[in-house]
């Protein structure tokens, strides 16, 4: 009893441990992954399945479509996807080539897209991916006009949920000869990525940059703008005014290969309110469904997908969950987790390059633990499961297309989620902040 009374909520063991670490090392903690703190999320919403006043569609039998077209606003060759679940941008460098290939193969098999990252496009990834989105990042590492033309769409990255306002990192142990050559850097250095684009600042410039990208790619490619979730209403508005065909909003639960822990945990807003703010911004401009909204950051289940779509997203994007489908944090090679000072389930050692399951590594021996074909099968299964779960929920709400889900189909289990998602608290008509 006395022990409990002596425990400080201001200085719990993890805080004390971090102070001890900082005092010993003199530098911030760098890690991979996304926010681990508890934030309001899609678990705090539930669907109101059909009953007397609405009737459901027959599960497994009645049609419930999942296709989505992205980028028809200005691009002459918009992206057509079979499912509204895409693979998020992750670099070759942060991930090994086998992981990138596996993601590409799985996305292709499921009729969806995958995305490059810092450092440009690898040939393996291009060949494995029927639909490949090319990230246009502040660092421009490995970015060439030939690769822009080889892509199916271009994603101008302004920021990401794990570190809005910050640039990426790739520590020296992952800067192998191949990664270094692709990025025009010396092998083995700790690579820092710029946090803002080198040749434009602000939305007025972005409009001109987007026009340049269209001129260089013959006005064919859809152009996405990706923002980390912060001032989401304004960011989405400005992205649309700058001419984006699609906007990607990445909430604070979104992952990264490496950045400061303080960035991951203390910058940005959760995905839940970000979706609502983005949809409101699009509706205010009469651009909802005209400019597609892709939501990422902590999407894990088909229920998360369905809830994001019900709030008004056109598609979602998954990063960390896709890596978990590849066996990230699986209880395999446990001695290697131990060597990293972690355990399966808690590992965020992506930045070390010593990934026990061969995903976030450039070490040939570790990378060999991930077979691209087997990895692709697992990710395909996972994407398939997400899609079926999402369809199940849509049918239960009587919808013949997953995009027909709407906020009216949901209620919130907490006051916070009700306020953030702007749906009623369960059992009431109360929407905090609007009623």
């Amino acid at each position: 009893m006395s022990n409990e009374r002596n425990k400080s909520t201001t200085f719990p063991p993890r805080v004390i441990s971090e102070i001890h670490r900082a005092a010993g090392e003199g530098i911030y903690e760098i890690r991979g992954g996304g926010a681990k703190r508890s934030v309001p999320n899609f678990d705090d919403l539930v669907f109101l399945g059909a009953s007397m006043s609405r009737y459901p569609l027959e599960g497994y039998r009645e049609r419930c479509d999942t296709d989505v077209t992205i980028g028809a606003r200005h691009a002459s060759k918009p992206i057509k996807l079979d499912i509204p679940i895409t693979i998020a941008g992750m670099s070759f460098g942060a991930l090994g080539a086998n992981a990138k290939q596996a993601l590409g193969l799985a996305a292709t098999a499921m009729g969806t897209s995958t995305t490059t990252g810092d450092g440009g496009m690898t040939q393996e990834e291009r060949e494995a991916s029927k639909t490949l989105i090319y990230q246009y990042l502040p660092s421009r590492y490995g970015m060439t006009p030939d690769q822009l033309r080889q892509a199916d769409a271009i994603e101008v990255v302004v920021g990401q949920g794990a570190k809005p306002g910050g640039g990426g990192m790739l520590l020296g142990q992952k800067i192998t000869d191949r990664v270094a050559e692709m990025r025009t850097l010396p092998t083995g250095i700790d690579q820092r990525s710029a946090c803002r684009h080198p040749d434009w600042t602000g939305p007025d410039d972005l409009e001109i940059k987007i026009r340049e990208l269209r001129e260089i790619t013959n006005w064919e490619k859809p152009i996405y703008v990706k923002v980390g979730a912060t001032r989401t209403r304004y960011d989405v508005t400005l992205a649309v005014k700058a001419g984006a065909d699609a906007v990607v909003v990445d909430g604070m639960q979104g992952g990264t290969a490496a950045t400061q822990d303080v960035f991951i945990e203390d910058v940005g807003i959760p995905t839940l309110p970000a979706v609502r703010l983005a949809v409101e911004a699009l509706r205010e401009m009469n651009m909802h469904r005209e400019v597609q909204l892709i939501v990422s950051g902590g999407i894990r289940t088909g229920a998360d997908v369905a809830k994001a779509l019900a709030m008004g997203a056109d598609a979602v994007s998954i990063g960390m969950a896709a890596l978990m489908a590849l066996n990230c944090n699986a209880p395999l090679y446990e001695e290697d987790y131990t060597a990293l000072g972690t355990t399966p389930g808690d590992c965020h050692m992506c930045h070390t390059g010593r990934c026990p399951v061969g995903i976030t590594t450039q070490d040939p021996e570790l990378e060999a633990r991930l077979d691209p074909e087997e990895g692709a099968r697992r990710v395909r299964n996972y994407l398939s499961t997400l899609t079926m779960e999402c369809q199940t929920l849509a049918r239960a709400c009587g919808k013949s297309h997953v995009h027909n889900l709407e906020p009216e189909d949901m209620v919130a289990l907490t006051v916070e989620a009700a306020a953030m998602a702007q749906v009623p608290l369960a059992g009431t008509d109360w929407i905090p902040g609007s009623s």
Partner: protein
Amino acid sequence: METFDLSSAEVRDLNRRLQMRDGDDGERQFRVLHPNGAHALAAGLTHPIDVTIEGHTGYYCAGMNQEATVTVNGNAGTGVAENMMSGMVRIRGDVSQSAGATAHGGLLVIEGDASARCAISLKGADVVVQGSIGHMAAFMAQAGKLVVLGDVGADLGDSLYEAQIFVRGTVASLGADCVEKEMGETHLAALKSLLAQAGLDADAGSFRRYGSARQLYNFNIDNAGSY
């Protein structure tokens, strides 16, 4: 010689022609009239053609150039020759910010002055400026050369990687991890060659050379304040 008058033609049609999107018919000389500060002029070129623009250009003129030679008889806006891969771009006047940003190859010659962030994140191209340049030049520049015949603003070469910088005039201040380095014979020869390619008459021996001290290449507590 084929002439485009942008007082009546569209930028989109100009670029489509210069990019030879409808096939290469062998024409190699192009002249552009009345650019009036339009953006993305001669962007994304891929063929060894000569393009002369008679007047001032907006943002991203000759952006991502491959193979082509582009001459602007006027001033150029932000990001001229950004991410150039090869070829040559010559600006007879002054240029705005981020000239030659992230350029991988080729040669950018600026006969006037350049504003801030000239050669930012340079990745292998060469940039020669006959006049003076603003602050944060060659920030995070990775490879290639920046040559300045005039003066340079504050924080030159901040967070520099392996790009080399040659300056004849004064430097207001050096950025983090940028230091003056010895001018060896090979550096002198490279500089002379570059000046000759740029068509500029200057004594290579009157320049000073700057490069990375390589102290920020790997995280070190002692340098934490510089990251």
